[in-house]
């Protein structure tokens, strides 16, 4: 459950970078650890984040957790459907459970590839 084509962070976010645009979300492992997600606080369109900034938060029946931006850029779209159906993150974290789309202000860097991220997950 760690797609090859995506990039990852140690804090369990993923990013799909295409040119100067990136789609981001949280990983399968993250949603599995959180359990049933009940609420997500999405970033707002127009907000700017540096890589590692807190861009939102997510709550499940077990815990509340921050979401950190895996890239530096400006939010150009958010997945508003999650507000009414946060379970989409549980069901399809890499697809319908995407969280936000960024226009990058600097090239994506410091991200892990799928093999590197797989090792982090194994250590847990």
């Amino acid at each position, binding site marked *: 459950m760690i797609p090859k084509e995506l990039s990852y962070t140690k804090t369990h976010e993923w990013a799909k970078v295409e040119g100067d645009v990136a789609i981001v979300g949280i990983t399968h492992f993250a949603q599995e*650890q959180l359990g*049933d997600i*009940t*609420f997500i606080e999405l970033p707002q369109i127009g907000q700017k984040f540096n890589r590692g900034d807190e861009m939102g938060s997510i*709550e499940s*029946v*077990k*815990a509340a957790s921050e979401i950190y931006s895996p890239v530096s850029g400006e939010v150009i779209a958010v997945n508003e459907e999650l507000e009414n159906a*946060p*379970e989409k993150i549980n069901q399809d974290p890499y697809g319908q459970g995407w969280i936000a789309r960024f226009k990058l202000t600097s090239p994506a860097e410091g991200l892990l590839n799928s093999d590197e991220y797989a090792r982090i997950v194994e250590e*847990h």
Partner: protein
Amino acid sequence: MKTIFAKSVPGRKGVWPEEPEGQITDFIPENLLRENLPALPEQSELDVVRHFTLLSRRNFGVDSNFYPLGSCTMKYNPKFMEDIANLSGFTDLHPLVPQLRGAGHYTQGALEVLYETEKLLCEITGMDAFTLQPLAGAHGELTGVMLMAAYHNYKGNKKTKIIVPDSAHGTNPASAAIAGYEVVSIESRDGIIDPQALKDALDDEVAGLMMTCPNTLGLFERHLREIVELVHSVDGLLYYDGANLNAILGKMRVGDVGFDVVHLNLHKTFGTPHGGGGPGSGPVGVNKKLEPFLPISRVVKLEDGQFFLDYDYPFSIGYIAPFYGNFGVILKAYAYILRLGREGLIRVSENAVLAANYLRKKLEDYLHIPYNRTCAHAMHEFVASAVKQAQKGVRALDIAKALLDKGHHAPTIYFPLIVKECLMIEPTETESKETLDQFVDDLIEILKIAEENPEAIQEAPVNTPVKRLDEVKAAREMILKEQDM
């Protein structure tokens, strides 16, 4: 089950209050009289008795069942404390009396209880002064952090951060943040604070460290001495979260170790009701460094033996609560401390630690016990992990639910966050060996069923008044009013 309001029948009466002599306006000014009667439920005495008796049977409490909820010390509330709190000399006392000019001599007994309780808590913790005003544990935490801030402001220290280990009590980061500090989390190693990680996080802007010792894994912080020295080296302050004081009562005085500020939970350590039976009480103790900043008012004893409330403390952080805290709770804790005495309080911690280690040992072949190689013994609570069971689809949540079917309260689950699938078990000192054995037998039986027939555990509970609740639906579609049901 319907609420008492839904059962109301217009015109039905259960009590016939005495008509007051004279006119109601003799007692209450006319402009304050209500125009309409309050919408109180109308029921006969028998219906009221049945309603509340049935309701109490659906309740789950330490008076009826074993309650091993870790991190929260849900201990038995001895009934003699209720007798003391019901003495008319206390119950008939109006809370404003000590603040009326010249009325102090009507309330000497109550003030003496407060004064003596402060002295006893100082003796137990090794601190120099206490305020009993905070109304709950988290309120005590916030008060404690505000005292730390007052100290740094007074000294002109520029402090912006508070360090909280990842094994600390869950409310610590929240209290520090609400008091305006940036929270810096440090990772523990082998379940306890790593002095190197503390060194790396430490600089001149650190206002202090908030510690729970033993921590939420039930492990004693073995590097305590070094930690105290490190934090004090930058003029930081050491905060002791008293949530787990039950483990060290009579064994270690936190003031002697070097802590500067401590909050206690009377509703945990000192046997006053906890949770729905509250309210709570979160007294805060300080050493000499922080004493000038304590909230007002403070109870003072004059040379002639009289007590009064003193408001004249120019460096005080001010008012944090109305009156003088939750007096009835403080009174119960005072009675508890006197009844148990020095020997009794020592036996509290000894038996609490013994009971926890007994369960830990008995369960180690069935559940994964993290850190048992680095820490041979736990303190008053311990953490077990259902990682093995989770591979078969039975998670900590399912095990906790299955325990309800056996008549036990569930342990704390999924906290602390640093242990996966964790169950945090705290038996407390008052449970008999028979009760502990029954719990172990029932838990082992659940774990065996989990291996052979996981579905049976995933459906639990089935014997409780309501079956397994849909927690996700409850969080997403909240219904907060009876009318909306």
